[in-house]
């Protein structure tokens, strides 16, 4: 299944947003802000870009996705359930002792999750291993790794970036969800983090800067990444934290907080139709 119609992809990503809000509301905990900011990226990956088949979920030649910012699991669970990896009914068990949808994704508990994540900074290292093996075995699959912008303050990310470059992992595509906010506030205030594109460029990556909440731009960026040979690509996706729910947008306070009943109803009302 490869959906190329932008309007249809926008409709799906709106469903993903509703699902995120619902999961966090029912669980009474979770991370809505960063999940909403990456909803469009995950929608494009799972419905337009990745070579995957929910009916053959363990195919060794499938493309892989690593949600390095594992706390944004509601976005991953939403796209996986939309794609048919598991029943949407299961989403009610997010973060619950009754179910398998852990606070952070567990590859052994949820079909479709390619790597267990949760301790920030480690996903790119795992992605390197997968991409390198794909090359060594001439398997031809691609590896996608989504990092948070706050997450790239972790030193391991840059150790891994040197490895991506060293092995010329052009089948690896890093996406930075650049929503400018982390739990403690603005990324520039917390750690002086700016010029993310320049940093990845300096580490030898092909870089592409896009509006990460614009479906067409996301598709184009992934297509360009596929055509880039001899080095890995980093897509710096400028996004809005909390995107789609006005009172959550650009508010660090919504990094890891569940909405009240009133807020939940307001959010779902806002997401009733696809916004333009």
């Amino acid at each position: 299944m490869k959906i190329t119609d932008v309007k249809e992809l926008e409709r799906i990503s709106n469903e993903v947003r509703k699902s995120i809000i619902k999961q966090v509301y029912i669980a009474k905990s979770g991370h809505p802000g960063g999940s909403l900011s990456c909803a469009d990226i995950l929608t494009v990956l799972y419905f337009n870009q990745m070579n995957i088949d929910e009916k053959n979920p363990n195919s060794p030649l499938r493309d892989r996705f690593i949600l390095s910012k594992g706390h944004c699991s509601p976005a991953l669970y939403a796209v996986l359930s939309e794609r048919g990896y598991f029943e949407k009914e299961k989403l009610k068990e997010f973060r619950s002792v009754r179910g398998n949808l852990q606070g952070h994704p567990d590859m052994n508990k949820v079909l479709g999750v390619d790597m267990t994540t949760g301790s920030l900074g480690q996903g790119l290292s795992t992605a390197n291993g997968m991409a390198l093996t794909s090359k060594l075995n001439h398997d031809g699959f691609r590896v996608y790794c989504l990092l948070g912008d706050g997450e790239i303050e972790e030193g391991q990310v840059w150790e891994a970036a040197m490895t991506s470059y060293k092995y010329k992992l052009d089948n690896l595509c890093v996406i930075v969800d650049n929503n400018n906010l982390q739990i403690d506030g603005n990324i520039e205030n917390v750690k002086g983090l700016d010029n993310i594109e320049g940093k990845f460029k300096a580490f030898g990556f092909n870089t592409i800067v896009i509006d990460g909440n614009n479906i067409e731009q996301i598709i184009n960026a992934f297509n360009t990444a596929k055509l880039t040979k001899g080095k890995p690509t980093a897509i710096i996706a400028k996004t809005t934290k909390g995107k789609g729910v006005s009172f959550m947008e650009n508010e660090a306070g919504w990094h890891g907080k569940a909405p009240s009943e009133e807020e939940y109803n307001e959010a779902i009302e806002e997401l009733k139709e696809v916004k333009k």
Partner: protein
Amino acid sequence: MLLVGKIPYASTFAVFAAGRAYDQIRNSICYPNLNVKICATHAGITVGEDGATHQMLEDISMMRTLPNMTVIVASDDVQTKWAVEEISKIKGPVYLRLSRMATPIIYNEAQKFEIGKAVQIGEGTDASIIATGDVVCEAIKAKEELEKQGINVRVIDVHTIKPIDKEMIVKCAKETKKIITIEDHSIIGGLGSAVCEVLAEEYPCKVTRMGINDQFGKSGKAEELLKYFKLTSEDIIVKIKEN
């Protein structure tokens, strides 16, 4: 890599392999139960001149507490060769602990080992010296010296710390008068602790633990450090005679 068909063998100094990478081992290897082999070298005080920053004395403790992890400590060249190959057959994470110091070869090439089964050397009943890693040879030296003095001990080479060979440990406690453990590692959390855990539950008795006594290491030649930290065959003999 293993997620896509290869078995990664990662190797560096134990102080970095187990210490610096603890979070990665915990969250990205053991929790997902991935088939990664960590071959940590330069463990223990026998690293020598580099000193405390490079002498890993807590790795057995940290690694054996992790669910899904198998912990192996090799005592000589023959056992090391066996272990490096054998651990590829275990489906799951393995921590293989190796040391820097050149040690005598204990086993002949025909020796059979099995993961989780300790090796018993000798039948003595005066004491059991339960040892692991690069000090197994010190235990054997002590055994040979004691024999000349009419004291008959056995040495148990516990190459697999986890899963530990409970059966062997309980058997030794039943058959011998004393239990002494020795390891080039902190006495907290390592082989000595593992033996105490088994015996406290299965066959309560006194256990004397020899190892690094809640301290950091220091610079010196490996042989000098073994003397300094009282881990030589002479020290074992003193312990066996004193209690």
